[in-house]
């Protein structure tokens, strides 16, 4: 079971307190009606499904109940770092 650091609680907590919420940094378009069907489909359905470092959203469901972003390795499963909503997208070091 992973340990996940909630950036709001500032604590390493066991994975069972958290819940995965899909890929991060996919903002809802401000004017959906202006988007073509293809653009809307892209927003709605297309995800990167990355092998390796992946930006994800997590919810501290059984804790502070806040959503946050994370950079996680989908091969080792481990979290590289977590950060608050609204903070800039974490850079992937090569």
């Amino acid at each position, binding site marked *: *079971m992973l340990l996940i650091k909630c950036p709001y609680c500032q604590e390493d907590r066991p994975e069972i307190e958290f819940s995965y919420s899909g890929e991060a940094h996919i903002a*809802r378009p401000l*004017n*959906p*009606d202006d988007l073509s069907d293809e653009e809307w489909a892209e927003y709605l359905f297309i995800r990167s499904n990355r092998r390796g470092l992946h930006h994800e959203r997590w919810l501290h469901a059984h804790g502070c109940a806040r*959503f946050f972003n994370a950079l996680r390795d989908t091969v080792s499963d481990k979290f590289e770092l977590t950060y608050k909503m609204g903070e800039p997208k974490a850079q992937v070091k090569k």
Partner: protein
Amino acid sequence: MTLHRKPEYGRVNRGKPINFSFDGKIYSAFDGDSLASALLAHGVHLVGRSFKYHRPRGFVAAGPEEPNALVTFDRGPGRVTPNVRATTLEVFDGLVAHSQNNWPSLTFDMGAVNDLFYMLFPAGFYNKTFMWPKSFWDRVYEPAIRKMAGLGPAPIDEDADIYASQYMHCETLIVGAGPAGIAAALAASEKPGRVILVDEQYEFGGSLLSTPNMVINDIPAWQWLEDSLAILKARENVTLLTRTTVIGYYHENFLGAVERITDHEKDLSSHKPRERLYKIRAGEVVLATGAIERPLVFQSNDRPGVMLASAAHTYLNRYGVVVGEKIALFTCHDSAYEVIFDLADAGISIAGVIDVRDQVSETIIAAAKARNIEILTGTIVSGTSGKFRVSSLRASKIEDGKITSTWEIACDCLLMCGGWTPSIHLFSHSKGSLKWREDLGAYIPDNPNENVISVGACNGTFGLRKIMTEGAGGSTEYQVNAGAFGSGIIPATFPTEGDPAKVKAFVDFQNDVTEKDINLAVREGLKSIEHVKRYTTTGMATDQGKTSNLNALQIAAKAVYKPVQQVGLTTFRPPYTPTTFGALVGGKDGHSFHVIRKTPMDGWAEDHGAVFEPVALWRRARYFPRDGEDMLAAVNRECLTTRCSLGIFDASTLGKVEVIGPDAAEFMNRMYTNPWLKLKPGSCRYGLMLGEDGYIMDDGVIGRLAENHFHVTTTTGGAPRVFRMMEDYRQTEWPELDVWLTSTTEQWAVIALNGPNARKLIEPFVEGIDLSEEKFPHMAVREGRICGVETRLFRVSFSGELGFEINVPAHYGRALWETLFIAGQKYDITPYGTETMHVLRAEKGFIIVGQDTDGTVTPMDVGMSWAIGKKKKDFVGKRSLSRPDIMAEGRKQLVGLLTDDPNIVLEEGAQLIANPEQSIPMDMIGHVTSSYWSATLNRSIALAMVKNGHALTESNVYIPMPGKIYKAQVSKCVFYDPNGERLNVI
């Protein structure tokens, strides 16, 4: 019967003799015996039949790696455990065990004919043979295979034991209490952190228990062990766990370990848990899991009496049991000589040593000579004889890779040593990488993926001095008297006499996989070891190939002419050894299996004979039968009473969310399809929520209590996900909105009153709210008091009748319910449950999200375009409503169905067809989503999703059901009171 015991040998307690039963026969043993050592003490070598060929099998090992000696441990009903390794089962007075996989008995087994038809059972036999015809699978092949093959039968009684689980935390966890683990524990516990030392055996010591002649720092091994354990016990930061198997190594040093608490205890009256699962989070993990001796792969290496050299060593030195009177050794490694010398020194006759290697060291030759032991170098064992126990071996001289001469050697036990395999299972669980050690012919840990170190034999370090020094992390330099491990070669395969196709040299004893099977798999094109494994099933038995994997790998590598590293290694997965379901379930069974949520009125419903059903995690009253009514009779009565007079219903399970803040209305406007900005405080509106994909996600009545305050209700099952989705948008998409959400589902008890007498019933109890039709119309909400308790009173109806939903703080729910129920007697009030609620709403054509919709249904599909705020610029899911596939023709749409025969209640889920004359497979155009008997209408009604259904009104569709195809007419969804006049009863 003479006992095969050496009086001056072993650690068993001869002062405590005990009796046990195996296959109905009573045997004697001593406290401290394993079932294996106790049987061997009586000369019992035959303990089971093999999986596929039903060949007689005996003990191969003395520890958890044992592949053959699986028995059923029988403590009476509810306490029967199949497939227990006899080598790890502690004997207690009165223990009962049975052999497995034999019928009618161990010595006469019908299935043994499989052995004569071995050509029928090559690798991949099941894959190839039983593919056709398909209909034979269930009726012919599977029952036959099940009867002939397999392990012990699974128990059928409910488990009579209880199980426990517990979290533990420590700075250092040491797995394995052999010499390396104990040295590590001594070193680690000198520092202040918490240390946990676990070992799966019932006493600590590991290999030291089998090597009493060792001297460590001038102290005899067993004395050193006792002293060291006394030191560890005295240290407050040390926790010692025996009989505890670490079964899995998970992320970030989280390990699972199972402690066996009562399996060795005669008396079960203490009600202790049988096993305890520890969930351990460790700062650092030290793996000291040792190594497992490897069998050699030669013709008839599976005959009882053929066993690992290390096993004979353990039986002699730990249990005082001799495994034969005339013992031979077949080896390719120096380490086994220590065993044969110990056996000779115990006065046992040695039939000879067959060593594959052309030469062995002078030291060994001298030590053998001193004991009059003959060493045959450059020789192999090419076969064994004997019915239920080995009686002789065939020794063959090898020159240039070929057999040049063969002769018989009489023996009643043949030891084998094919080198050593470090136990890297847990390291592999933790996803550490491995590296190949050519000299060991084995993989050892390389780069760790966790904060873990491997010490001793599991790290490829051999020889007691080196093992212990490595265990101590260099902090202590250990001196030992002997125990040079020596070296060996890894032959993998041997030449055979005669036709190699007729040779049965076993690699995986438990799954009956031979060298020939692996070669066949490779010839048939399976080049990856993962494929070879699945095709031959090698390493897939309950022992996960502890003794066989490396042999299989090397045979496969040889067959494809590749280095072993390129063939790979199969993946080890938890659990390390078979684990009971009980240990994993812990206390979470029966009533504790999962949470059952109960409403404040649940007790009243139970007292009044309600029949319950689960709805999400809630249990809800389904109906309230009276005087022996069945469900239909009760529901008919409840429906009619409600429509004619008054029904009372517990709606407390509805999800409730408080939406508060200056931007509350704007937030609601974005979350729901309906317009909210202009809804007046004191009014309610039906709210429809979509996913961003445009499909219906949830619905519920929402009341605006004030300009900045909404009382939202959701479906019972949808409450958690709706709240989560709202929070998601609030936190991540619209953080600029000043609005707060609070889940209040459990804060309110909700009593729904429906029926023409609803207002009359509550009127005398309500204060501060004018209940008149003019002042409190349908779809209004007011705050006031009822029976003196604050209430949010909604005038809403899910039945089509005059209706109220009374919200009061949860702890007043039952008192209010009882008050209303007593007062309602004059209106013949009926409590009703979810079944009547469903019928009443279906009569009105109200959908239930999740029953009439399935996550691919749009508002238009169910005729609810009216719920969409057409002028709204945006809301969740809006853009998707103009997606091409959502606008396309031919979508399924919600309609009503009236069967031609009004007495036929269609099955929910039944498929619809347009033309009953077509041939099978028919073209299915939809399905029934809801279907009931309507007592009000005195006929059946149904709702269905049908392709282009809205255009099909009044046309016929057909519904095939078991035995008959029924005809029905498509109708509007509203079956009763289409103009809603009944809502406004004065």
